[in-house]
């Protein structure tokens, strides 16, 4: 197992260096002079320009700039936002819990609905229920989620007036950020009704962000179940007279879950992409909205730092998923 971990880490290092190169060159590939970009529309005087060149190290050779950049990264220095003048890493850390909270709720929603849907479709293979579930799943997979979010707002917020339109919590409450997770923080505070408010703000974004993972999980579960249900050991279990529930729920499911777990883990990249859209629609103060806003405000140090952090997180989660896969599937562990 240790060999496997080291091998995977070894593969990850060149990719990570590539990611740092990408984010390093991002700011330098932008059309126009980096200093003038940083200065914004006000412009700078020639003396100040020279000062800034030296301050940001743009007068040094490019490879030296890259190593300075790497050195700063190692110390946790991702640069400073042009707009807020806050360190990028600090901003990231403040907003990250909001995205994690939304992402976890979305994936939980996707699993809780998608897994049973896939199992039912597989058990009722070829029947009307199977077709219904699979058609719905394909529609979910094809869903433009930005439009889906707007539709849900029209229906649940506009027509029914059940849920709020945007934000994480009603403006009536001020919640001290302890963990950064609104659901936990509201429970910790003694504000009556704050938790309910947080939940009601979370429902629509969760559904929107969870839709595509839900469809993927349902489709994957169904095909994995179908494969397993054909196996001899399942027939044996049936022949022994075990109940259908036991055969499907315990014998078959356990093996069918292996590929499904991988698929769930791989949804992290999809979730980040979806978070960009979901957070923009619901004004959710997380990483996705932060990135989009920064692109529009031309706050390029933020875009650069955010890009790197997100890629790093996706890579680490994918690595963990890979290793977990090795853990649950002995075939992989032994051949590698």
């Amino acid at each position, binding site marked *: 197992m240790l060999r496997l971990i080291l091998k995977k880490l070894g593969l990850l290092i060149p990719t990570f260096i*590539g990611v740092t190169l990408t984010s390093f060159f991002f700011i330098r*590939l932008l059309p126009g002079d980096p200093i003038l970009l940083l200065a914004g529309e006000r412009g700078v005087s020639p003396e100040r320009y020279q000062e800034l060149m030296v301050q940001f190290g743009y007068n040094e050779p490019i490879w030296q700039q890259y190593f300075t950049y790497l050195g700063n990264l190692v110390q946790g220095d991702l640069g400073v936002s042009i707009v807020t003048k806050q360190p990028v890493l600090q901003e990231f850390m403040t907003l990250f819990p909001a995205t994690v909270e939304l992402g976890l709720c979305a994936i939980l929603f996707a699993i809780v609905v998608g897994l049973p849907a896939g199992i039912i479709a597989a058990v009722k293979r070829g029947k009307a229920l199977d077709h219904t579930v699979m058609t719905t799943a394909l529609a979910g997979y094809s869903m433009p989620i930005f439009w889906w979010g707007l*539709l849900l707002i029209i229906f649940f917020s506009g027509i029914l007036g059940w849920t709020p339109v945007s934000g994480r919590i009603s403006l009536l409450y001020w919640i001290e950020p302890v963990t950064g997770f609104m659901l936990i923080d509201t429970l910790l505070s003694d504000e009556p009704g704050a938790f309910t408010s947080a939940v009601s703000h979370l429902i629509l974004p969760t559904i929107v962000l969870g839709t595509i993972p839900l469809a993927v999980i349902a489709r994957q579960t169904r095909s994995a179940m179908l494969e397993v249900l*054909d196996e001899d050991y399942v027939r044996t279990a049936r022949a022994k007279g075990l109940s259908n529930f036991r055969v499907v729920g315990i014998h078959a499911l356990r093996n069918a879950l292996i590929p499904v777990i991988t698929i769930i883990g791989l949804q992290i990249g999809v979730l980040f992409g979806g978070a960009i859209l979901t957070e923009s629609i619901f004004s959710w103060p997380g990483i996705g909205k932060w990135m989009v806003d920064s692109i529009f405000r031309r706050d390029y140090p933020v875009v650069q730092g955010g890009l790197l952090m997100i890629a790093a997180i996706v890579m680490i989660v994918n690595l963990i998923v890979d290793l977990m896969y090795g853990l649950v599937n002995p075939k992989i562990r032994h051949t590698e």
Partner: protein
Amino acid sequence: MADVTQNSGPDTRFELIVNFWRHFRTNKGAVAGLIFFLTLVVIALGASVFAPHSPIEQYRDALLLPPAWQEGGSWSYVLGTDAVGRDLLSRLIYGSQFSLFIGVVVVSVALVVGVCLGLVAGTFGGWVDTIIMRIMDIILAFPSLLLALVLVAILGPSLLNAMIAIAIVQQPYYVRLTRASVMSEMSREYVMAARVSGVGTLRLMFVTVLPNCMAPLIVQAALSFSTAILDAAALGFLGMGAQPPQPEWGTMLAESREFILRAPWVVTFPGIAILTTVLAINLIGDGLRDALDPKLKRS
């Protein structure tokens, strides 16, 4: 005998297509998707004939008119009008041109570049392979929509740049698929035979090996056609794709956002257009996969 083997080439190809169609036809969803898609192609090609109005003409006396069947609607604007009085139906019809164009361009670029890189990586192996695949890993390390957004930020927001960005984000999948099938084909006897008979490397790559790697690539092309339309619409929605007044469906959604509670139809119809188009293409993709790739066949 020699004549027979020579003639069997086109024959088997024809048989392959017939055989493929026989499989594809049994999948009702895929056939429905195909019919929808072909209809859309006809609509897009004949947009100027089918559209009752110009897509950018603003009828100032008909702002935010509801669809014809609702109270206050008018049959001259069947699906209603948007906030500046443009006919929604005409905009949707012209919008189909954008979506199909985006799909065709993105898939062609990603496919051609991806297949070439994959062929090179799979055929030559060694450090060439390592470099190409590591670069693909780097592209795949970023969430695709985020990377596309950042690329558009570098290139400047426009439809063309959005298409370039999406093509760049998608081609690693083609590279990986091509490389994997090339590597498995390379050890086959027919490749060995071709090599022994002195076939050049380029001919070996493109003429001998590539045709036998097509099945997964065709399926991937269908899937990435729909992803391209979705991503382009998402970029348009975020203001980073096609720019107003172009009637691209995602851009139309972005323009209509502030009216969602007052005029739900300006939001509803472009979304339905995106959803049904993407769904139809995904249905075709599923059908292609079942018909072309017996290994992946869902039972």
